[in-house]
């Protein structure tokens, strides 16, 4: 008690004086009590948030910041980083247009810039095809399955299953199926065709399509399940009213169901776009993005050259470019397309 009084007096003399003047005994004045409560509150907050914050700053933020720093150096990842040569934005220039040095630009365009743009074009092709192929397929299937029939629950479970398989294990499976002497070739021959001239994966044109087929197999189920979940929220009364007014099945889908699951479709598209930019596991398992990079992605290109060819500075520059791409696309998408949904939150329900 005396210790408390002493600390209280020294911490809040003004209040103490007032308290004495008012004739009250200056024992643990209110300010002292709240101060201790405040300290306690902050200690609790630190205790609860602290571990997560430390982990997050150490293992997420610090590496990301390091990647940005490495990208300004020429470094092989083996020697001391302090010995690495600072080259400014040269790594970025090399990726984008072969570097700024006229003497090496020609060679670097072939060595660095071309594979980079090729990989990037594959990412964008996958984004485009997801919207042009996966979206219509998933919508059509979801709209058709959005009714009661025997085995619906089973169908939903099965169609969704590939999503939970790891890309690596699914990829290994398809590697066997698309073996030149495998069952896919056999089936093609059965209908009088043959596998692509260079092989399912190696063919310069068809390799990419094989991989896109596999990606679709893996991920179209997610879209179908999300759309079905959205459709289950569309009021049946609405569809019924339209049917009574003489709307056909197609009209009901176009005018009611599809617009009302719009928010779900737009979020799916968002996830799909971001996922397509960061696509790595699947293409890596399928021969590291192809023997000649037929279906490389920015992420597989980054790992190939950054880690396995020990060009850490350049690899980090690619990582930063990838981050900026997802960041800019995410912001643009949110500002333009998703803004509508957030402004009028889910009228659909």
């Amino acid at each position, binding site marked *: 008690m005396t210790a408390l009084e002493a600390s209280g007096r020294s911490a809040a003399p003004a209040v103490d004086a007032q308290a004495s003047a008012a004739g009250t005994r200056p024992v643990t004045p209110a300010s002292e009590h709240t101060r201790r409560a405040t300290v306690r509150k902050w200690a609790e907050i630190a205790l*609860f948030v602290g571990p997560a914050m430390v982990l997050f700053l150490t293992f997420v933020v610090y*590496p*990301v910041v390091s990647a940005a720093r490495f990208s300004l150096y020429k470094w092989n990842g083996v020697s001391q980083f302090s010995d690495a040569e600072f080259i400014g934005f040269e790594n970025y220039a090399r990726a984008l247009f072969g570097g700024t040095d006229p003497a090496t630009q020609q060679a670097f365009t072939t060595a660095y810039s071309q594979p980079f743009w090729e990989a990037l074009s594959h990412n964008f092709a996958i984004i485009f095809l997801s919207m042009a192929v996966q979206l219509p397929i998933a919508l059509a299937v979801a709209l058709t399955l959005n009714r009661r029939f025997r085995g619906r629950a089973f169908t939903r479970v099965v169609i969704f299953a590939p999503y939970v398989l790891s890309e690596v294990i699914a990829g*290994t499976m398809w*590697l066997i199926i698309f073996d030149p002497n495998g069952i896919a070739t056999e089936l093609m021959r059965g209908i009088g065709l043959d596998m692509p001239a260079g092989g399912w994966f190696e063919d310069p044109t068809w390799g990419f399509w094989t991989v896109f087929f596999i990606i679709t*197999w893996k991920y179209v189920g997610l879209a179908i*399940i999300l759309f079905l979940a959205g459709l289950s929220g569309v009021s049946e009364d609405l569809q019924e009213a339209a049917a009574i007014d003489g709307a056909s099945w197609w009209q009901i889908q176009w005018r009611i169901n599809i617009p009302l699951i719009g928010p779900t479709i737009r979020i799916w598209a968002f996830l799909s776009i971001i996922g397509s930019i960061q696509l790595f596991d699947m293409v890596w398992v399928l021969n590291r993005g192809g023997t000649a990079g037929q279906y490389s992605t920015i992420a597989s290109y980054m790992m190939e050259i950054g880690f396995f060819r020990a060009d850490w500075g350049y690899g980090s520059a690619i990582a930063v470019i990838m981050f900026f791409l997802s960041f800019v696309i995410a912001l643009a998408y949110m500002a333009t397309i998703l803004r509508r949904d957030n402004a009028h939150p889910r009228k659909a329900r």
Partner: protein
Amino acid sequence: MSVDTPARSTAASSPEGRRRRGLMPEGSAYVAVGIALVGVGLTLGPILYLILGGFRTQGDLAANPTGFPDPFMWQNYWDILSKPLFWRQLLNSTLVAVATTAGVVLFGTMAAYPLARYSFKGRELVFVIFTTGLMFPLTVAVLPLYLLLRDMGLTGLWGLVIPQIAFGLPVTIIILRPFLAALPKELEEASFMDGISRIGFFWRMLLPLARPAMVTVGVLAFIGSWNAYLLPLLLLTGDPTGMTLPLGVTTFQGQHAAATTMIMAYTSLAMLPALAFFLLMERRIVDGLTGAVKG
């Protein structure tokens, strides 16, 4: 979402069937069943082919890839299951996934609690810092992360678990915060009146009440860890008995390039735990994903 019963779905003459018929074109049940069959076939076909392939001899696979295994042989599966390698990798994957899930859920819930139910200066800032994590995929950070872990001496399975927890936190906190915030205020008032401290409240009241949301984020973290490949690829090099299953499968494939049916058996076995987990948790996974999408 209603669970469909077989009786209802086929009874076209029931009031339910008649009522819905106006919404569908004639014969649309056949279309739906047809599409469903195609979808199920395309999904299951490759998986069944893989599993059956594990029962083939190498010669049978070359001669008769489309038929039923002949002779039907257990040898491949037996060879794998009777040796420790597969079981070790299964154990590694399980340990890493369980530890990752526990860490993500525990630290995520702890962090989400003050962010949801305390009012303090800088609260929104802390929340925003965590949400920026959504924009940093592991792919961007992986090269420096590898160096950091190497310098810290965090190798092997722990080197996987700790970064996976860190990368799992943002989503967890974002999903949990509104859930915790929605719990009634009276809970705390009643508890404090009973002399329970805030920390006691967290353990005894909040954790049990938050269980549904924790299961959802936990399932997502578990799947993410179970399927992880990029970080194991960098960290778990060398000894296959130290690998997790996805990396183990690709390594096995590299080492047995000539024995395709053996690879098929190994890949099938590696698939089964994930499929079993999925069948058990299907509802949770779908709810988690749709919840995350809608929220």
